[in-house]
């Protein structure tokens, strides 16, 4: 993917990789980062980041308009930095829900296994904080969820590679954004459980891998459509609560990352 792009920085970019192709070490580092941010109860912690999207109020996430892609790009960027504060060099992986593997098995094993190595898998389920439960309880007949859960549909019901290509064929940003958000909604509904509802969706660790896939496809579309122009007024729009505008999100290399299928590295001469 990056061959058509020029990096704005001489500093090495972080590569977001396909979750199905992480090395054991990369997956272990990712789990370690999640374990580290989960108990932190301030703005560096998991609950702070997950809560920005849904409960507790205010609900900041942007859906149903053109801010959908830029807002979520900024959202992932800040969460990834929070993970990296705990485990340097870790990156958010992306889940290719349109792949053959997804259509055969559904949710990737890295996120579907309840336990790994005799410990709870932090990518499987996490607790929902009390304040998000309290606010959510106003509408529910039953007790709000104490932890995230999923109720996935059949793997074959996920969007296909053809569906993705149809979205990538959109001739302009407006059309692409609408089609991409449709695929995004599809996967949320497919996952089910707490991930299917805005108030708790971002607490599911799989949320971030799903959105990294969405963000990656936007990146692919951008590379295929380098001349796509966006209105200046739109570019200047803010993305609260993040100190960013739409324009700030357009170039992922300026945010220090790129998408790759796999990465392998060895030491140099020093």
């Amino acid at each position, binding site marked *: 993917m990056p061959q058509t792009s020029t990096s704005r920085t001489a500093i090495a970019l972080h590569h977001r990789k396909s979750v199905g192709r992480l090395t054991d070490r990369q997956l272990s580092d990712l789990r370690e980062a999640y374990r580290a941010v989960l108990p932190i109860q301030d703005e560096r912690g998991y609950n702070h980041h997950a809560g920005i999207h849904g409960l507790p109020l205010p609900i900041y996430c942007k859906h*149903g308009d053109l801010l959908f892609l830029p807002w979520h790009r900024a959202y992932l960027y800040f969460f990834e930095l929070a993970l990296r504060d705990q485990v340097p060099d870790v990156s958010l992986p992306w889940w290719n829900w349109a792949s053959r593997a997804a259509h055969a098995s559904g949710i990737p094993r890295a996120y579907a296994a309840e336990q790994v190595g005799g410990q709870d898998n932090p990518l499987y389920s996490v607790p929902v904080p009390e304040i998000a439960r309290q606010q959510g309880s106003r509408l*529910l007949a039953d007790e709000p969820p104490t932890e995230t859960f999923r109720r996935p549909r059949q793997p074959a019901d996920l969007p296909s590679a053809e569906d993705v290509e149809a979205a990538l064929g959109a001739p302009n940003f407006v059309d692409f954004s609408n089609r991409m958000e449709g695929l*995004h909604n599809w996967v949320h509904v497919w996952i089910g459980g707490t991930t299917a*509802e805005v108030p708790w*969706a971002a607490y599911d660790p799989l949320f971030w891998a799903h959105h990294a896939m969405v963000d990656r496809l936007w990146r692919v579309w951008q590379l295929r459509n380098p001349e796509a122009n966006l209105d200046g007024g739109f570019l200047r729009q803010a993305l609260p609560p993040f100190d960013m505008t739409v324009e700030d999100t357009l170039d992922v290399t300026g945010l220090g990352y790129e998408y790759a299928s796999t990465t392998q590295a060895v030491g140099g001469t020093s």
Partner: protein
Amino acid sequence: MSLNHYISDPIPVPTPDDAEDGTDFSRADLEFYGVDHSGSSFEARVFFDNPDADETTPRQEDSGYVGSFYIFGHGGCFGDIGHCDIPAEPNGPFDRRPPHPLTPQKRTVVVTEAIKQFRETAGGDLTVTVVPVASESPIDAEDELFSFERLALITYD
């Protein structure tokens, strides 16, 4: 849970004879305007000429299935009284707050080939049936899950 289905009034389908230069359309969209997304999440399955379609109807061509759109629902109103009341008018010119998050949305299903096939096999006016299928989630879907203001069939040369 049985949720509310929608069955449209008959919709005239354009033919090449309707075009100024006699050429057929290159794309046809079903556009749902003013779709409510304040409640729970769901899939909306769209069928042509199958008013009896329900959740069990196969999503296959011979059932009239032409595609789905998906609503990632807000999950209800979690604020105090008035928090989820959508203003009747858009923001004024000096009001820089974003639109209300529950402002109804538009959803599109591309039906280019399906419309052309419908013309060849059934012909006449088209009836659209929409079957909402809720996600299995902590929020119980309400009976009136699927609500929208207007449906349009739009074609492009």
